[in-house]
């Protein structure tokens, strides 16, 4: 009975959190799917998104959600920049090269970030009210974040399936060589995809900043979660990433009802490896 109450209390909350997990993972999985690059700079980009919200709210004194659109645009440009500088040259090289290239970007951002921002926590003291539903408290910030995530997911879906550049992205993801033969400018499309992936990461960071205090290292945890989600939902599958995020959020709500909270990472990563072994293409990926 006690467990049931706990479940009722924690589950909705976990699901709401799952939306932003999913958004972050969508960025990772988009880049993975289109160009087969695991972006190890994902975490620091999420952290930069967090700091952008801090800047908007605490320095400019604006509503944190007003920052989402400019942060998204900056994220897009930043991603294109990273692609041009660090990724483009190694896009056709073996896996290790792109992994290490994005990891160097990770080191550069974290190093500069620590020097400029320290690793002490920053806090966006923004409270968007809360909704009491029986034993569960739904926080306003999380409800809004879930809504923004849905907007971005819908937007991404529309972009990928209804617009010309979006269709090009899917074509390149499917078969880059063939897409090039058909006259699709693959370099531009790859840069755009990397930009979009970075944008999603930055936006997710911007939203997470309204939940939790953070520092420049905070993105690392979400990067790892994005891996887990990517595998859950199928790497390269943005919609799967959203579902993967929801599943992960749910797990984080369910596990503490039965076990000590510190078991969460054990189970999360154990599950991650298990799914990789059984269904490397993810729960929602096509079975090969």
């Amino acid at each position, binding site marked *: 009975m006690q467990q049931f109450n706990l479940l009722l209390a*924690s589950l909705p909350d976990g699901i709401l959190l799952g939306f932003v997990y999913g958004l972050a993972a969508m960025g990772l999985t988009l880049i993975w799917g289109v160009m087969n690059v695991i972006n190890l700079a994902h975490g620091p980009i999420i952290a930069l998104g967090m700091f952008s919200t801090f800047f908007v709210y605490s320095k400019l004194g604006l509503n944190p959600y007003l920052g989402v659109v400019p942060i998204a645009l900056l994220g897009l440009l930043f991603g294109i920049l990273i692609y041009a500088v660090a990724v483009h040259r190694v896009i056709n090289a073996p896996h290790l090269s792109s992994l290490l290239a994005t990891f160097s970007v990770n080191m550069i951002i974290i190093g500069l970030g620590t020097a400029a921002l320290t690793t002490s926590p920053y806090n966006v003291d923004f409270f968007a009210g809360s909704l009491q539903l029986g034993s569960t408290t739904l926080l306003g910030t999380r409800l809004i974040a879930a809504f923004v995530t849905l907007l971005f997911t819908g937007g991404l879906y529309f972009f990928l399936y209804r617009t010309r550049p979006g269709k090009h992205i899917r074509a390149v993801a499917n078969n880059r060589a063939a897409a090039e033969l058909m006259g699709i400018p693959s370099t531009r499309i790859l840069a755009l995809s990397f930009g979009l992936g970075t944008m999603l990461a930055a936006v997710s960071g911007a939203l997470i900043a309204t939940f939790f205090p953070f520092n420049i290292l905070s993105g690392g945890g979400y990067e790892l979660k994005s891996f887990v989600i990517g595998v859950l939902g199928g790497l390269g599958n943005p919609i799967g990433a959203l579902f993967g995020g929801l599943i992960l959020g749910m797990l*984080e709500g369910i596990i*503490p009802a039965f076990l000590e*909270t510190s078991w969460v990472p054990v189970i999360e990563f154990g599950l991650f490896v298990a799914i990789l072994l059984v269904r490397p293409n993810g729960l929602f990926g096509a079975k090969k």
Partner: protein
Amino acid sequence: MNRKLSILVTFFALASLVLAACAPGSVEAPPVADGSDTEKTVVIGFTSSLTGAQEVSSKRQVNGLTLWMNQVNAAGGIHLSDGTVVKFTAQTYDDESNKERVQELYTRLITEDNADFLISPYSSGLTAAASIIAEQNGKIMITAGAAEDDAYKTGNTSLFQLYTPGSQYLLSTVDMLKTLDPSARVAIVHENDKFSTSVVEGLKPYLESQGFEVVLEEGYASDTTDFGPVINKIVESGATVLLGGGHYPDGSTFARQLYERKAGLKFISLLVAPADSKFPELGEAALGVSTSSQWELSATHTPEEAAALGKEWYGPSGQEFADAYLALTGDKPTYHAAGGYLTGLILQKAIEAADSVDPDKVRAALEALDIFTFYGGIKFDTRAEAHGLQIGHEMVVAQWQRNDAGELVRQVIWPANVATAAPLYPIPMP
């Protein structure tokens, strides 16, 4: 082929020598005065976390130490009876909050930079690794920010702990609770790491011996950000009091979510985080959260207290320290800053008492030390099985309350004789 090979081999031999020689050797040791001079510069060596997870607290500790050093040098150093004037200089490296290089860097401090005395890095794990180097070289290491007990129970002879040990951290809080609400139901929720676990290990038996009911004991992973499920568990357990926490990042997150989720606890005590001056950035969520503190400016110890206890008073008053610290850093001192200052201060006292900078004499002086400062009492355990463990210092309990102007301030609420305000109990509901 053979010729090529021998050239190659020579090349590698040279390259490795050159690389190896230039990599570490570039930092010059500070000049050491020769024997004929009456001025002696003592080198204090330590690593700190310029980068990495423990950067905040580590920096405050270093600031405190720097302040002390500036002061003692500006005052003309320590005059020994043989006419030597002792001045101090610091040598420091970044340990990245990471154990990988700590031993290498401390060895370098001792053998290359000729450090005479060592200060510990910040955090118990790093200190444990560094202490072996100190022990090996017979160098005295004064530790701050290393409260966990184990490192002092390993048979060392060179460690001297400034902080109240972890296992004692929350005992004064329990004493206070006993007077406030003996029927409180306690939830212990702590970070699953070395320091916090050692605190809890000392806390739980004491709670039970004092007749409290522990309704929940739960650890959370160090990088936890979402405390929602944990808070639901606390609420579900029917706890009225929460004791626990860990370090700054998780503690501040935890406090904020306790507030957002209206956990309805009567009393919250978290480790480390609420003791930091950045904590009120949490706004309303900080109100009523208390912490166990090594030192609080508002309850700083006084010569009168020392006299009453029959102990020797040493060093500046708390206010003098705070003013000087503010002038140096533009920040109010926290207990980490006081800890850093005190590492220097007790070294100064020990050198004066020993009338020498000879390590063995200073060690003997430290072992015999029993003084009272603005930071409180300091006395070290001299038994072989717990050598250097702090036994003279008591923790105070501090709580964030609103002053008359409506600002959040940290008030000392226990022990009663130094308290600056009554405990806010229960924490008012928003």
